[in-house]
């Protein structure tokens, strides 16, 4: 019997050893998704995560038209003639707490914020030869620009304007940390508009200092400056607004377009930042720019011009009207005016313009006019430059 054991025991123990070594195989990782731990261990992973931020912004609820249109309805620039009950509530200022469209804007925007936070949190610790501090900061700056842009938009949508109580009113919860599983850190109140603006300003200042690219479909220094100028303007900080707007206008990466054919041309220098959409990858719900603003049957025909807007144009001469509108069937089967800034109602491949150089002329003009200064240019000249492009006669004075 002992003889047998001599053979058997070695087999058994070999078996045990084989088994024990199998233990490592319990750490299996997915092959078609990437674990977050892995992403921020290489510069390539970090760069892809930054590219993903723009992709997140392509959601209709973020930059591709849904919340932007809500503002247009509130402003009576365009009408909503479609059937979505949640949009009707927005149009009629009767928004209920269970309005899912509003909920989705809030959710989808905070998804972008958290995705940016992961970059901002993950990149500094990344250790890779040749991936220097400046490279890291450039990536972080892109994420902070995106975060600032989202916070800025949301601050406009979810709180009263600065002028109401000098920014002391409640705005948004400031989430500048990452989610790791626990929700207790997220039990935070809304911060004041001033605090949120300060948070945005800090992000933008970092972006201005560290952004290096010139691709107008991505975050650039000019784009950060432009957004910073907009923030100053909203806060009535005229001098800073004029100075930054002037700086952007003097940036050779941007230039006022000669006509209005630039909307779907991302190569045009008119754009400071434009979000590119393609048929395969872009607007996702039919409730974005292309879906809402195209007459049926290509689009939904939900958002035609209001009479207020039409009346504000010199409809015979204003090139913004004569070259940028069409008549078509709206959702209620009547013929209405629609914008032609977004023309692809079939594949929804229209770009979403986010910041244009035109805005900087208007910002510089308004800031100078209100401050009684003429940083860079006299306000009247800025206005007449734009009127000239629109085919309108010069004004002789501003009021």
């Amino acid at each position, binding site marked *: *019997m002992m003889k*047998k*054991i001599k053979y*058997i025991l070695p*087999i*058994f123990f070999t*078996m*045990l050893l*084989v*088994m024990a070594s*199998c*233990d490592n*195989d*319990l*750490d*299996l*990782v*997915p*092959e*078609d*998704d*990437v*674990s*977050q*731990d892995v*992403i921020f261990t290489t510069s390539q*992973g970090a760069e*892809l*995560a*930054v*590219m*993903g*931020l*723009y*992709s*997140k912004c*392509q959601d209709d609820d973020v930059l591709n038209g849904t919340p932007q249109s809500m503002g247009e309805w509130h402003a009576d620039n365009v009408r909503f003639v479609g059937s979505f009950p949640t949009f009707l509530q927005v149009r009629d200022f009767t928004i209920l707490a269970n309005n899912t469209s509003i*909920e989705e804007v*809030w*959710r989808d925007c*905070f*998804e972008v*914020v*958290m*995705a940016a*936070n*992961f970059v901002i949190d993950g990149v500094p610790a990344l250790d890779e030869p040749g991936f220097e501090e400046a490279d890291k900061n450039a990536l972080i700056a892109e994420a902070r620009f995106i975060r600032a842009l989202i916070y800025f938009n949301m601050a406009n949508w979810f709180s009263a304007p600065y002028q109401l109580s000098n920014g002391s009113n409640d705005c948004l*919860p400031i*989430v500048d940390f990452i*989610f790791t*599983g626990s*929700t207790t850190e*997220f039990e935070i109140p809304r911060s004041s508009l001033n605090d949120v603006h300060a948070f945005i300003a800090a992000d933008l200042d970092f972006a201005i200092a560290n952004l290096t690219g010139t691709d107008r*479909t991505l975050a650039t220094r000019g784009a950060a400056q432009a957004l910073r100028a907009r923030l100053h303007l909203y806060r009535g900080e005229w001098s800073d607004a004029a100075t930054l707007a002037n700086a952007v206008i003097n940036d050779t990466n941007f230039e006022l377009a000669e006509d209005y054919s630039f909307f779907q041309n991302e190569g045009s220098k008119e754009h400071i930042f434009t979000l*590119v959409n*393609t048929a*395969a*990858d872009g607007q996702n719900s039919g409730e974005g720019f292309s879906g809402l603003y195209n007459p049926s049957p290509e689009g939904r025909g939900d958002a035609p011009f209001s009479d207020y807007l039409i009346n504000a144009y010199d409809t015979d001469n204003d090139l913004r009207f004569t070259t940028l509108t069409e008549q078509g069937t709206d959702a209620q089967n009547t013929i209405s005016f629609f914008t032609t800034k977004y023309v692809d109602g079939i594949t929804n491949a229209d770009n979403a313009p986010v910041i244009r150089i035109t805005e900087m002329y208007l910002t510089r003009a308004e800031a100078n006019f209100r401050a009684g200064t003429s940083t860079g240019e006299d306000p009247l000249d800025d206005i007449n430059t734009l009127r000239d492009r629109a085919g309108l006669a010069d004004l002789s004075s501003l009021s």
Partner: protein
Amino acid sequence: MKFMKRLIFIVCAIIMSTQLISAQTKQVSGTVTSADDGMGMPGVSVVIKGTTSGTSTDIDGKYSIEVKSSDILVFSFVGMVAQEIPVGSQTVINVTLETESIGMDEVVVVGYGTVDEKRLVQNVAVIDEETLENLTATSSQELLQGRASGVQMTQSSGVLGAFSVVRVRGVGSLTAGSSPLVVVDGVPMNDGADFNYTNTQGGNTGLNTLIDINPNDIESMNVLKDASATAIYGSRGANGVIIIKTKSGSYKQDATVTADFYTQWTESTDEIDMTNADEYRQYLVDIGDASSVDELPQGSFDWPSAVTQTGFSYNADVSVRGGSERIKYYLGATYSDQEGFVVGNEMQRIGGRLNFEVKAKEYLNIGANLNVSQNKIDRVGLENSTFAPMTSAYLQYPWVEPYDENGNYINTGFIANVIAIEDLDLDDVVSKRSYGNFYAELDIIDGLKLKTDFGFDQLSVEETERSYEINSSGGYGSNRIVEDSKWLTTTTASFDKLINGMHRVTALGGISYEESTLGRTWVEGSNFPLDALRNVESAAEKTTTSHIRNQWSLFSLFSRIGYSYAGKYTFEGSLRRDGSSRFGPENKYGTFWSVAGGYAISEEEFMQDAIPGLDFLKLTASYGVSGNDKIGYYPSFFLYTAGADGNYNGNPGLVPDQAGNEGLKWEENKSLDLGLRSRWLNGRLRFDVTYYRKDISDLLINQPLTYITGYDAVAKNVGEMQNSGFEFDINATIVKTPELEWSANFNMTTVKNEITALPNTSTDVNGSNFIAGTSAQRAVVGKSANEFYLIRYSGINPQTGDAEWLTADGEKTTDPGDSDRVYVGSAQPDFFGGFSTTLKYKGFDLSGFFNYSSGNKIMVDGFRFTDRATATFNIRKKVLNYWKQPGDNAYAPSPSSSTAGIFAQRSDLFLFNASYLRMKNLTLGYTLPESTLNLMGGFIKSARFYVTMNNVFTIKSNDLEGIDPEVTDDTDPLAQGETFFTPPQSKSYILGLRVSF
């Protein structure tokens, strides 16, 4: 000619046999005594085998009978083992009869071993070879239905290869896998719980993922139910374990060849009564939708009849089993070609199995169990799909015809031309599977064995669809291949020793590693230039080109220790530690355990003869913990995803996709089992009753997160529920004589499923947390996992002709809303089970088998479409009974009523009591007597002819005309008891022959 001669001889021989007997007789006498006390036994039947002539013993146990030398005498007495003695030259034959064993020395297969029934303290439902022998089934799960207490099997539909939902002691999970683990010869089978092997085609049921197990190869199926049985399977035991043992040969046994052939005719059991074209046209005129019949389309076609047929099938199984001194083997081959009762539904199976074992050395056995099979199913859609024959046949306007005037197929639009689809389109699933194991078993020292095995399960499922121009403009093609491959290795050491004749000690220790990889390749295309081009290669647009791969692995250590004292007291404990790739890093390993005890009270001195008729009585109790690991492949990770979600402007990117939970783990099942097992009347009556309670915790629930975290929800182990109930099993041999045997079995299971916690989920009007499984049902705290939540339909007001519903407060209304929904019943039965009876008289056997379910409800969603008073689809004939004038007791409202448009909305009007009693099977068999076989030269050992009828009748609610009460259109535990239009279980007639030689 030779055969004819033989046949004539046989027939003559049978006719003349009685005369032959009386020709050369002699007198034989003797005494029959009992082995118990050596006393003569009066009343023992002494019969010449194969005849009815015989005698019985007198008061002293003496007998005398006239026989011939070639006769065999059969001595039998109730409760004693019958003896057969060839007469030969003897003139005095004395016989001692032994008490019949009461079936307690049978060996029961349990996890990683066997145990004799007397010492069994685990709760195991056994479906043994004797039960299985005369059953014809196409899937292994079918064998479970109604046969064992605690096991509920719901066949999702009557199409070939349909998925079956199997539950052991109620539903075990809400959002994770809820099917029991199936282990074939030690190999836990891949079951597709984490990933659908086949696309769904209407409804959310793929095909049966275990169709490749040939029922004819199965020797026994044991269902492990309580924790003491399942804890040894650790993180996979919580939903119960089904252990399948396939047939094997025996050492020193002559080869037996068994061939079984049968042919089968299959037809639909039930159809919904729809209006024909004339009735439908007249209806439209009557309700004012058309001014005259003539202005309506004039065609006419009976779609429901055209999509059903009598399916013809045949099946052949041949096996050889036997063994020599050192080798035993079982070799089985099967071929079957089946046709369903829905046009276009076919299944072909071809497969083989080889099980063998070799005594290589005195101390070493080696062996293998290997199965290779291919299963091809020509699928049909079902449930909520317009490409499903039985759905579109009901919905199609009855004036629509499938052909144009030239006899060519036409496209009938949204409600598709299902005849053209089934005739032309391709919709095939081919699964190829090889599985089994190789093993070596060493006898180390007396009582100690070491066994190591290497098992595998390689499955490839290829699904090909091709829809041609006439049915899908531009054509459509799809090819999807899923390959799920696993291998595992298990090494166990087992010890079994009887010490001093009183102390039985058993011990088992084992180690196992298992790894599985699933790959799915899928291409889809549209815009084909020609119908003749079959494959996606030719599609101008490739709409899907995708490949994905998932893996999991499991490392386990396990042990079981048993101790039994004098057959009276038995204790058993088991322990398992599982490490799984599925679990989060904080809970990589789980520990599972059980303790059990049994007290054979009948073995006590004081119990001897205390209760008349009692042979054996045992009380058992067990408690333990097992787990459910079917929580997905990578649920614990924080994940980023690529593809269209991450891309921007032609550049690849990555975006967050899944919130991780490092503590994520298995779902846990704490199970209590209290049992009583008894044998009465020398084993002729068996009565078992069990109380069980399963407290299931750590149920995987998606917990909503505040959106500022950047995520919607994260999976957490937070849900809790409880299943409890009783199980009853009664087996009785009512009559047992050498000529006549009549036995009956009955089982019943009660299940009460109650959700006890669903933290942070939505709350209903009562403040209870719930998860909505479908638009019609919820899992809700304080109630079951499948509570229908609907508005209540009240009826047609005879005065006004309006349809009326009830508000939440019970007031009548013609305009109910979502807030009027209330809980109106559960999809889960209160109790279910089955019973069977078998009568054997001489060579004849007659058996009937019934199964039943009570207290459950089903929702028939398809009626929301066929009962629309507005003419959107064809209507049920019932709808013709609409309100016409005051006083009418109508089914449907007045066509002019404001409620006409909402009459068929989702409400409890379409919720039905699905309690049923079904005669599942009726079989008449005739086994040729041995004497006849002998006359044929003894070449054939046995021959049995049989006629079987399946689904003979079903007793159910009258409202379920055309609807099978046994349905589910979804495998999701949260979406049971709903159907759109399910092809019902088929009625089939089988003619078969089984011969062994």
